[in-house]
């Protein structure tokens, strides 16, 4: 579903991605771990078609997002690190707006269901987003992703700034989406959450995935040790 083959990207002299290979099938949750500047966000932006690779290939369901971004993006949903929405709209209005952009029309009831699935409290549906906490905005972002009925989901630091229960809820949602066949790429610092929810983990440094493993084979401390080992190498 989401594939990258020998993906290269430079910013001037600086190499952001170096021969990156990635293959995420439907139903898989791939956690991309790494420090700031490792190339995680760049990878996501290449899948979105926001950045043009300097070499290699990137495909979303077989579509090249740099040549046909519109088609690629209809298959993708994206939740950025900071889910910023239109403050003058309510949560429901934002969902309505973005869903329309995504080509989907939902009734009020359906939108309420989506927001509820994303974990947003009913009392907040008709409040202006300018009054929302970060977690609440995150939930609207998830609802928007759900509304898109996309076949792939890209997440950039989705749990940063969330409290543990919100984080747990989020992991539950991800699992549900993966069970429905969505391919998920999640860039994160959160080793614990990665181990908990990911099917595979890639540890990235200097634009390259240094180690790739299945976290079910490890416990959290082992994952941490491997991560630190990769960083130190």
């Amino acid at each position: 579903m989401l594939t990258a083959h020998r993906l290269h990207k430079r910013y001037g002299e600086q190499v952001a991605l170096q021969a990156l290979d990635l293959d995420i099938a439907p139903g898989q949750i791939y956690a991309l771990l790494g420090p700031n500047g490792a190339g995680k966000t760049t990878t996501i932006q290449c899948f979105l078609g926001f950045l043009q690779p300097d070499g290699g290939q990137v495909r979303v369901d077989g579509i090249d997002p740099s040549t046909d971004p519109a088609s690629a993006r209809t298959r993708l949903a994206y939740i950025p690190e900071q889910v910023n929405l239109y403050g003058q709209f309510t949560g429901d209005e934002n969902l309505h707006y973005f869903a329309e952009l995504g080509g989907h029309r939902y009734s009020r009831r359906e939108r309420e269901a989506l927001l509820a699935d994303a974990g947003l409290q009913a009392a907040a549906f008709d409040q202006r987003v300018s009054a929302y906490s970060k977690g609440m905005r995150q939930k609207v972002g998830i609802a928007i992703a759900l509304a898109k009925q996309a076949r792939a989901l890209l997440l950039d630091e989705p749990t940063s700034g969330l409290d543990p229960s919100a984080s747990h809820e989020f992991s539950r949602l991800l699992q549900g989406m993966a069970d429905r066949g969505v391919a998920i790429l999640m860039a994160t610092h959160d080793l614990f959450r990665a181990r908990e929810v990911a099917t595979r983990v890639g540890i990235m440094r200097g634009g390259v995935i240094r180690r790739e493993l299945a976290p079910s084979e490890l416990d959290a401390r082992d994952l941490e040790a491997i991560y630190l080992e990769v960083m130190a190498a």
Partner: protein
Amino acid sequence: MSMTRLARLLVQEWRLFAANRSNLVLLTVLAALLGFSVANGVGRVNATQAAQQEAVAAATARWADARSQFVEITEGRREKQQFDDATRADLVLMSQRNALVLKPTPLALLSVGPAREGHDIVAVGVQARGAAGAASRENPAIRLDGPLDAAFVITWLLPLMLIVLSYDVLSRDREQQVAHMLASQGVGLGVIVLARLAVRFVAVFALTAGIVTVGVALVMQGELSRAIADLALWLSALAVFIAFWLALAAGVNARTKNSAAAGLTLMGFWIVISLLLPVVASQLLSGASAAPQRLDSVLGRRALDAELTELAAEVTERYYAENPARRPQTPAINEYEQYFVESYYPRQVALDAQFEPLARLVAARKVEQAERLRTAALFSPSMAMKMLTDDVAGYAPERWHRFDTAAAEFQAKWRAFYDIKFASRTPLTLDDYDDAPRVAYRDEHPHARAVRNTLPAIGLLLAILLAALAAHARLRRAGP
């Protein structure tokens, strides 16, 4: 993207637009300014129409009064007086001034133009024709401040409002970091920007067009087809003008991440297009094609008058030699009458004939200036919009020139009809009253205005084309 989906997108963008209270406040301010200026325009046009009707009625009444007095005299019910005798051509015709009026165009409410008082009424009789009224007493400091008419609001304030409504049409999403979410939905950013601008276009155009159309309906006196033609021309220009400023905003926003910078850039465009280019054009024009110098014509006319006065006897004799039927058959009634009939009038005819080319020169210079300004308007949409608005409001020198020519023709007809009586001291008859030449002036067709404004219209179209092409080129590659 299907039409249905586009329509739904437009609905969503309208909701987003309306959710921002400052947009609605701005539209309210625009409506208030336009409403105020249009209402004043309606009042002004109504006052002109009333003054014109009054002037025509007064001239008609004066003629009818003179006719009644003539009938009373011929029936023996009234005595002839030295200075009040309706059978005497000199007394009746020296005081009879027919009112020729240039009716306001249907869109006259849009602009005060360069006009002073006078309500476009020309007094025509055997004497020299002129504006029916004295020179204006209006305070020049007030005139200098300028009128708050719809032309001012639309030419200079409307673009500013469009800039405020659209300067952050995409840059704000970038600043607030919504742009990535937006771009990831599968609709191109260009389509989203287009939809947003379409919403703004519809809001501003509908508001402006609606208010102006109501105003036109209030002042229109019959002439529906002309009103529709003028309105169609002007509304088309308005649509292109609004679209131009929105396209500029799109082009600037395509790559800008900073709304303040986008706003400043658009203000810069406004200053160049609405202030600098017109100032430069105005300065160049004042050098290359200066406004006509009336002082030369004033001195010229006075010199002619003095010369003809010196040769008064010769002028009179030449007049009678060329027009034998006008030689007086009876002696003068008194020295006043003798002066007017045998000295003043032949001199006046000679003066008008010799001075007419000079007067035409003044009109020709104004037409030349207008033509050059229309050429300059190719480079500034604001100039183009102002010129076109002033033209449909009736202030083109060509329109006045046409009217003045008709007034001159009517005067020639009037003089040809009456001056034989006046000059030869032949008493008037009832037929002279009843068969008086009638005024029947039909204003230029709106088509003439459209043709005249070809260059400003091309200027507007070129501007929107360039802006739209630039915006399209920049938006194609626009990312979050």
